[in-house]
């Protein structure tokens, strides 16, 4: 059908791209994680010292736990916001559906940084929220824990990832054939039972996809803690960033990156299999 030259011309550029910008960096990262830094310079000597440090120094484990905790909170909050929203839009929004859908999606077009700085402005000591609370005489001096806390990070990431959670759930709900809901009611199930027995099970793939999005993206986030998190909300990616930057310990940074990569990959693998098991069409 197609000539060899045509096939080569089509497939070689993307293959090169994948090799140079994906496989090679991964290989370099993997190799670095087994090297070490001595007297401020990189030594290409194979060893397991970086991984030993990771598993013996409690600091890293602590930060990782905090990161996982923040990512789990973000996932839970985005699901609690995104699922009802998707449900409402899919089943009850009627003619306003299109408009509401666009309103949910619009924030995705606004730069991540802009939204981060917006939260800084809202949550800061002389920010919009504190000003409002004092205006209402609910508080009498600025509340300091709004900004620079894990709470602020969860809030900002939830704001950013809720549309990502909403979209796959909405798509899953839209794909449920409506006669199934009528059949359920016809067989004696009220709204609640219909939701629990038909809608929820059939939306599991969307729910899993959304939750995976929110969790994996939050797990690797380093801008939110930088902008609104402060020292009490340092996440694992911030550690990696500082190891590659000021601390100049690329091998240790690479070792942490390899661990995160493995965790993320196994997570994606698991949810992918779960999604397959829960899809029936």
């Amino acid at each position: 059908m197609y000539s060899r030259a045509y096939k080569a011309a089509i497939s070689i550029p993307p293959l090169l791209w994948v090799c140079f910008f994906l496989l090679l960096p991964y290989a370099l990262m993997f190799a670095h994680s087994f090297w070490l830094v001595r007297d401020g310079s990189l030594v290409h000597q194979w060893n397991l010292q970086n991984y030993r440090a990771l598993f013996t120094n409690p600091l890293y484990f602590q930060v990782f736990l905090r990161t996982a905790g923040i990512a789990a909170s973000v996932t839970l909050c985005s699901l609690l916001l995104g699922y009802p929203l998707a449900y409402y839009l899919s089943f009850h929004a009627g003619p306003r559906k299109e408009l509401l859908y666009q309103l949910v999606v619009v924030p995705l077009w606004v730069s991540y940084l802009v939204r981060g700085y917006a939260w800084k402005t809202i949550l800061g000591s002389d920010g919009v929220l504190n000003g409002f609370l004092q205006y209402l005489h609910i508080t009498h001096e600025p509340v300091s824990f709004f900004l620079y806390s894990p709470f602020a990070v969860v809030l900002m990431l939830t704001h950013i990832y809720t549309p990502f959670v909403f979209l796959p759930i909405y798509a899953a709900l839209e794909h449920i054939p409506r006669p199934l809901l009528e059949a359920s009611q016809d067989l004696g199930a009220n709204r609640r039972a219909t939701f629990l027995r038909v809608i929820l099970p059939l939306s599991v793939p969307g729910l899993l996809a959304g939750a995976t999005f929110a969790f994996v993206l939050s797990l690797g986030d380093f801008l939110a803690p930088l902008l609104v998190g402060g020292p009490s909300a340092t996440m694992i990616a911030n550690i990696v960033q500082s190891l590659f930057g000021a601390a100049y310990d690329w091998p240790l940074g690479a070792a942490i990156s390899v661990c995160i990569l493995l965790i993320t990959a196994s997570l994606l693998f698991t949810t992918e299999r779960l999604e397959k098991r829960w899809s029936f069409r």
Partner: protein
Amino acid sequence: MSAGAISPQHATSAATLLEIRSVAKSFGATQVLKNISLRIATGEFLTLLGESGSGKTTLLRLIAGFEQPTSGEIWMSNERLDTLPPYKRRVNTVFQIYALFPHLNVRENVAYGLRVKSTPKAEIASRVEEALRMVKMISFAAARPSTLSGGQQQRIALARALINRPQLLLLDEPLSALDANLRKQMQSELKALQREIGIAFLFVTHDQDEAMALSDRIALLRNGALEQIASPRDIYSRPATAYTAEFIGQTNLLRGEINDGVVRCGALQWKTSEVTGAALFSLRPEAIRLAGAGEDAAGVARFRGIIRQQLYSGASELLEIDCGGNQILRARIPATGPLTGAHEFVFSPAEAVRVTESPTPRGSRPADHEPR
């Protein structure tokens, strides 16, 4: 009026299971059902027959509770039905596209209605088995619906509805997605099943043959109004309107003039007791037969015509007879072998049934005297 209230002035007779009282339904400015009144008897097989857009499915959905009537009431066994949500109605539906739950296997699909009513586990198991045996699907209990054929899915949908022991089963064109052979087979199984379990079936179809074969009574709907309701034999032999006569079976519509007890209609004329004036008659093709040699019975109408076309279909053949003056009649006669030229035909005047003009003609009707 509150749901479940008993209304003495409307008390229904023991034989009436469901009563539809002056029900109308509009979607926006479109009136889909116009003042429908209808009774379904206990154990009856009633078919709602009509073209697409006649309102038959809407009427079914009103009874199931998926739509609310714009006006009118629906009662079942002295209980007002139309104010109840679908899940509180003692009716079950077999959907056109089956609507089996894709995430549940056959057994779980059939058990659904019992599960949501928290029926004891042991009872569920035995009733599911009974229902699956009834539709001959017991060996598929563990299968997913997506692995089943259309006919098999149809049986599961039937079992899933019947396991709840409804007093009335609603069937929305349940056989329309099946191929012709399977359809015939399912028709006869459905009829046998209905006889066996003795519950009332309200069956929606656009297929008049199906309606004739299955029903105790047929309700013919047209543009949201009830055109005629009668047993298949009555609706075929005594159609009330030209529309009914044309929709159910084939017919020759004859527009004639009655004068002094004689109907004149093109080449045809026969004696009648009807009063003078213009009139419309329906004469079924099988009512016309070839005049036998020397047949000279009194009280038989006769006419001559040239055979234009002969369509053979095994046991019988359909003749198109040109009677002159643009009048073409169709006759269905027992297969006799090739016929050509002019012949004499007879029919009994009693077979020419007077029908009323349909209030609104369907599309463009061919010229008078001409059959459909």
